């Protein structure tokens, strides 16, 4: 004869097992539905094409070591980071063209990302850091129209590896990137470079890639030597 309390315990365990089984089956179904929803990557709306705008490019010329201003019309995204990447992509596409005056292989895909951050300092003399203003965070300070920005340009390793070696050609590449950024995004006052996300000593054995470049210094008058 089974004692009554054991019968009661068995009944409770049986009911609990049933409840847990139902709950588990229900959770499995929900997870399955989520998985199916995530895999549905079919486009539901057509990609938006940014309107064409005029972009100012500072194009290098190896024959006389100059930077020439060219205005090109190209679709530019509204986001400043994507806009900077699009402009630099166009610049490097010009350098990758067969008849380029400053031939550099790689093209527009050599720019992996352009990050825009609050510049560490307002110029070289005023050492007030961005965001140190009372009541303003770094993000708020970065959104202020007058706040200078630091652009961090992340290039591909293949671009640096295939770049022609030489003081002139490397310097022109760096200065044209800095000048183009400043011409299209005037808030960009400083530029730093990464290669495959890592700091690098030189671009191709000469020009220093570890320092911060002042974008305004890299944007000389048209046709001037850097």
């Amino acid at each position: 004869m089974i004692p009554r309390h054991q019968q009661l315990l068995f009944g409770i365990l049986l009911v609990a097992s049933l409840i847990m089984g139902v709950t588990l089956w229900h959770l499995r179904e929900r997870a399955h539905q989520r998985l199916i929803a995530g895999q549905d990557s079919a486009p539901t709306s057509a990609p938006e094409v940014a309107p064409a705008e005029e972009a100012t490019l500072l194009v290098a010329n190896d024959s006389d070591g100059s930077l020439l201003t060219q205005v090109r019309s190209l679709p530019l995204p509204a986001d400043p980071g994507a806009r900077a990447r699009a402009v630099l992509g166009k610049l490097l596409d010009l350098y990758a063209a067969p008849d380029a005056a400053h031939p550099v292989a790689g093209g527009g895909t050599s720019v992996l990302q352009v990050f825009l951050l609050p510049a560490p300092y307002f110029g070289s003399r005023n050492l007030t850091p961005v965001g140190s203003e009372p009541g303003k965070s770094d993000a708020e300070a970065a959104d202020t129209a007058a706040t200078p920005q630091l652009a961090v340009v992340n290039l591909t390793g293949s671009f640096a590896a295939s770049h022609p070696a030489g003081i002139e050609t490397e310097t022109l590449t760096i200065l044209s990137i800095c000048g183009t950024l400043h011409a299209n995004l005037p808030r960009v006052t400083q530029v730093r470079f990464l290669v495959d996300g890592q700091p690098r000593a030189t671009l191709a054995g000469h020009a220093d890639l570890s320092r911060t470049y002042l974008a305004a210094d890299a944007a000389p008058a048209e046709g001037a030597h850097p």
Partner: protein
Amino acid sequence: MVDLEAGKALQVRLKSRPILAEYGRTRGGLRLVWVIAAFVAASQLSIAQQAPQAPATPPARFVVVLDAAHGGDDTGGRLGDTQLEKTFTLAMSVRLRSLLGARGIPVVTTRESDAAVDPGKRAEIANHAQAQACISLHGSESGSGVHLYASSLAPAQPVRFAAWKTAQAAWVTRSLALEGVLNSALLEAGMSVTLGRTSLPAMDSMTCPAVAVEIAPELGPDKKVIAELDDPDYQARVATALAAALVQWRAEAHP
């Protein structure tokens, strides 16, 4: 001679000027030996040697530092089908050193063979030489003629302790003047010259008037190559013009 025996006390007392050490007793009796250890004086001398002096200070002697870029595993750029930049810069350094030696100008080189020299070490050699001109030699296939580059650092006043990566800032004005003298001499020799500013790791740490000289093939008016970099005559013309410029620079620095 100071006799240091076991058990003898060594006392070092710091005073206002030198460090005085009392070395203890000799067998013959008590003898105090005042040794001018010159620790403080030596430190001060070392600091004074490393700190950038005001460019206006007349130097003791005229020395030129020749920095043949690259070397060892760092081959630099490829010049043509066969020549490497490191080989070309060493050849130009040897050639220019001979010309300067013949003109009575002492030369310090950063390398004499195919050896890898760190950019920091190159700057150290130049700074210890206390040179009045530091020429960094490079070669390139791109462009034409001779490219002269001074540091792109903003000019700054000399300070006692300069930051290593921007030590050249106190010398930029003099570097630009040296660049002008080199430019005049090269133009006088009939070469095309491109002037510019750049940032090179070794040059930005030098505490001397420093210019990077990048030699490219000589192009004619129709953009065709007149002289390649491996042309001995072209190398000799460039080296002669640079030597003449440095003689002129010495005349200006040591009137």
